């Protein structure tokens, strides 16, 4: 026997309609709010990018038209990022970021969880032929002089500037660089692939010979960078990529003040003569100038790039402890010393400066303490 279902009363129908309407309204409200939030974030990112388009690898079109000095830091591997987007350190909690960050350089709230990029754990390198090449890239990265001797012309290793084997935010991490290529670079005046960018590191920072395209060394470094960038969005320009751009110093950077900063905070490891320290065959602390350091064409020879690296990362393990002014001063002091010649040297320092170093961040071709920098390059 069927139990007849009583038709809903009019009052009940009205109540159901009200409930349905409420649900719809709330749903629409949530959808609008979500979209608005997304737009807001996109807008913020867009603005951030536009503030650094002069040097960021993120906006190729803008960069190619921007008044970039030829010696501007390279995109992504050694570019600055938006000053409003303080980098998260992969693996760090926001609390830890806040503790180690410098309030003067970190005016913006930490990025949202969605913006955090954490490279895969070091033990996540897969087994098999691909993983083997990634591991080789990692070992080249850590000990470049031993594992890629044919291409290195000084005492440096990749990891000296790209801390934590190229994983650390604000230390030009590979996960920040790899997704930004191919990119037009004012330094080379053409669109560089990531492999070409890596070759640039060997030419300038390592003062060596770039590995040929397709060389095992280059492929291993590409594989390592690609592996580390898993999940990183292509072309977006991530917080933590490159070196965190520092605010301009209150007083113009000064080498004499910088020398005092150097003696107090740097000489312990890098030596009073800036030549680093060795144990046997191992260069434990890298030389900062002189014949065994990066050459006059390296991004790090620019005062702003060095200041940014130093403030975020030096002394080792105490990044963020030096003040903004001190960082600029000591960067200027370090980069006021002779180092290996720019491989693009035309035979004339003044002409080379005009062609490749026409920037206030480069001291090449300028007279500092009576010495024409670049004229006695190693």
């Amino acid at each position, binding site marked *: 026997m069927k139990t007849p279902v009583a038709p809903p009363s009019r009052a009940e129908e009205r109540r159901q309609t009200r409930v349905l309407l409420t649900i719809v309204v709330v749903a629409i409200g949530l959808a609008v709010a979500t979209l608005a939030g997304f737009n807001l974030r996109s807008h913020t990112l867009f603005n951030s990018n536009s503030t650094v388009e002069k040097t960021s690898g993120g906006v190729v079109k803008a960069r190619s038209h921007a008044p970039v000095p030829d010696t501007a830091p390279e995109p992504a591997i050694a570019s600055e990022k938006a000053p409003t987007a303080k980098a998260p350190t992969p693996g760090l909690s926001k609390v*830890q970021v806040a503790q180690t960050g410098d309030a003067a350089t970190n005016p913006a709230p930490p990025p949202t969880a969605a913006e955090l990029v954490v490279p895969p754990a070091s*033990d996540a390198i897969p087994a098999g032929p691909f993983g083997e090449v990634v*591991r080789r890239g*990692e070992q080249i990265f850590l000990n470049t002089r031993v594992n890629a001797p044919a291409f290195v012309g000084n005492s440096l290793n990749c990891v000296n500037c790209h801390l934590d084997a190229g994983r650390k935010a604000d230390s030009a991490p590979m996960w920040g660089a790899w997704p930004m290529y191919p990119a037009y670079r004012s330094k080379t005046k053409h669109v560089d692939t990531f492999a070409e960018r890596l070759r640039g590191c060997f030419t300038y920072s390592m003062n060596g010979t770039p590995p040929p395209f397709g060389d095992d060394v280059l492929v291993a470094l590409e594989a390592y960078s690609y592996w580390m960038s898993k999940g990183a969005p292509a072309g977006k320009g991530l917080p933590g990529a490159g070196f965190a751009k520092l605010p301009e110093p209150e007083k113009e950077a000064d080498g004499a003040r910088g020398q005092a900063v150097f003696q107090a905070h740097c000489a312990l490891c890098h030596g009073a003569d800036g030549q680093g320290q060795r*144990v*046997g065959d191992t260069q*434990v602390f890298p030389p900062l100038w002189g014949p065994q350091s990066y050459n006059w064409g390296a991004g790090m020879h620019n005062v702003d790039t060095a200041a940014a690296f130093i403030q975020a990362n030096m*002394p080792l*393990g105490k990044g963020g402890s030096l003040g903004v002014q001190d960082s600029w001063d000591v960067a200027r002091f370090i980069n006021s010393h002779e180092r290996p010649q720019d491989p693009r040297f035309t035979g004339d320092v003044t002409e080379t400066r005009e062609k490749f170093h026409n920037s206030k961040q480069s001291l090449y071709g300028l007279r500092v303490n009576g010495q024409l920098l670049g004229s006695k390059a190693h």
Partner: protein
Amino acid sequence: MLTFSFHSLHNALRCSGVAAFGLSLSVAALAQGANNAVGERIAREGLPPRVAACIGCHGAGGEGSAGFPPLAGSGKAYLFAQLEAFASGARKHAVMGPIAQALDTAQRTSVAAWFAALPAPLTQTKEAPATPSDRGAWLAARGRWQDGVPACAQCHGPGGVGVPPNFPPIGGLSAAYMQAQVEAWQAGTRPPGPLGLMESVAKHLNADDISAVAAYYAKLHAAPATAKAQP
């Protein structure tokens, strides 16, 4: 929280004061030069009755033993700074405190110089690439950057053999000694060291880290002897 912050600030000020004072003192003292004969006599015979012979505990060649850190392989600046800290009480140690106090500045300089000139007990050993599952090897070679901890080797050299004059060897230290130092830095009973580098690292290390690193180095430096013993 407020109390904690105040305490930290106080500590920071005190430590930087101590460090600055220590540095100026070391520069002055080291400039006086060391007397090798004086250093050797203190090391080998002590200055009875208050100063025992250093080699009695630290080994005839300053090589150290399970309970006592090696002195050979450390730089003069490091050893002298430790003697100064023991004497002032900035580094608290029941045995070393009175010994260091019984030496004057010239004697501390001399004995530091004598040990610093001895051949280092550790030699650089080839290390296999570290894997993350080997915690000790990983901390030694790679650090733990998510906590801002650099690799041991980045300051103490490959295999922890030390980088004189300021970075002592840690490769031969026992876990107990390392752990005691880490706890001393955490408690502020050992000076923060140059630039406060090790104090800031110590805040992020725990007992498991220490025993893993000590075990790694012990194995690393035992390996060549074993290899030589094999036909």
